[in-house]
């Protein structure tokens, strides 16, 4: 193997030999990623806790389709449409954000201004939608529910499988753990038993941190905390976007020679969209 020493030495750039970053990325962007990882751990912890409790109380957990049925300017019940619209708004604002980043890579100031402005509008629309959703969740439905002293929630159901307020309008009462799917009728409590149960219960409407008309109180707690925490992220994202937007307008990044700040705030904004993808699945779809 002596000839091995005689071959010419080829200079190959070494990633870890110093002088350059092995990650090929600027400090600020790397730190934004590390912050997002830690934030992702927080949301993962919250959603896992939600899954744990939902699994534990699976027979008293409400179905999202029974809870979120409202749509602006529409009186009837329509499941999933509103939250689908919210998801669309957030995905749309994610696209406008990434187009702002792309315009920044071409040093196109007007492009960055246009797309960032649209992103901020999308962010406000989303925060507003969430406020509307919270309003309806807290306000509750017309029929409400009955809650016993040991915190079991019951609904009164009529012959068409709709929930009603008064026992005289309905055919029986259904525990919140029984969902309005095929064969729910055999779980209904009827006649004197129903009247006795209603007599021992309290009528409640809407939701707060102690109780809600939809089912287990933890459902409301997790809803308020996780969507609230996410909404707060969206709100901070809008505020940071506005700050960066003002800097863009003033030509700061044009002078600096790169639009990396837009890219960094873009990373945060996409992360907010990413979290919503998971919240949408675990809260509304499953």
């Amino acid at each position, binding site marked *: 193997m002596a000839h091995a020493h005689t071959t010419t030495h080829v200079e190959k750039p070494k990633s870890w030999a110093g*002088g350059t970053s092995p990650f090929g990325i600027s400090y600020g962007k790397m730190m934004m990623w590390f912050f997002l*990882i830690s934030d992702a751990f927080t949301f993962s912890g919250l959603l896992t806790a939600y899954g*744990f409790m939902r699994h534990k109380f699976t027979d008293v957990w409400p179905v999202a389709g029974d809870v979120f049925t409202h749509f602006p300017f529409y009186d009837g019940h329509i499941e999933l449409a509103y939250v689908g619209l919210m998801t669309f708004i957030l*995905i749309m604002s994610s696209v406008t954000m990434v187009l702002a980043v792309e315009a920044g890579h071409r040093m196109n100031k007007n492009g960055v201004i246009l797309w960032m402005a649209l992103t901020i509008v999308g962010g406000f629309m989303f925060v507003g939608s969430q406020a509307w959703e919270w309003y309806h969740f807290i306000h509750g439905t017309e029929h409400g529910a009955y809650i016993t002293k040991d915190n079991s929630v019951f609904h009164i159901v009529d012959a068409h499988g709709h929930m009603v307020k008064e026992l005289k309008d309905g055919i029986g009462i259904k525990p919140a753990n029984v969902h309005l799917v095929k064969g729910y009728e055999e779980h209904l409590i009827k006649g004197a038993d129903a009247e006795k149960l209603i007599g021992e219960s309290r009528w409640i409407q809407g939701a707060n941190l102690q109780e809600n008309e939809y089912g287990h109180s933890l459902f409301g707690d997790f809803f308020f905390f996780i969507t609230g925490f996410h909404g707060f992220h969206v709100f901070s994202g809008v505020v940071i976007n506005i700050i960066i937007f003002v800097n863009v307008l003033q030509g700061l990044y044009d002078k600096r020679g790169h639009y990396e700040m837009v890219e960094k705030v873009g990373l945060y904004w996409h992360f907010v969209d990413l979290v919503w*993808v998971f919240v949408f699945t675990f809260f509304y779809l499953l």
Partner: protein
Amino acid sequence: MERDDIFEYSLHTHHTEEEGVGKRKKLWGVFWLLLVVTIVEVGLGLKFSRVPEMKSILFYTFIGLTIVKAAYIVLTFMHLGEESKFFKYIVLVPYIMFILYLVFISIAEANYNFYMDELFGWATRK
């Protein structure tokens, strides 16, 4: 004074107008994909969420589609796909390892919870 011994990574991501056309096309493609997947999810939810036999199929379908959407957002919108190999690993590997553990431990603990419930008849079912 300008220093020339520091590598300016911030300028590394610049591209020309011609390259931008292709990149924008790709971004809009991902947008349509995310939109279609979301519409499919909403459609499946509306059609099958009240069919008890579909419950477990829907569960895995929704989680699978969510991971597809998450991957497209992280790799394309957040440009992680274009970063260096080392950086991709340092972001994804610790996170995925931690999440797998978190999911494992919560399922294990949830089962333990049911076991304790059965054993002692805890008043935890309300």
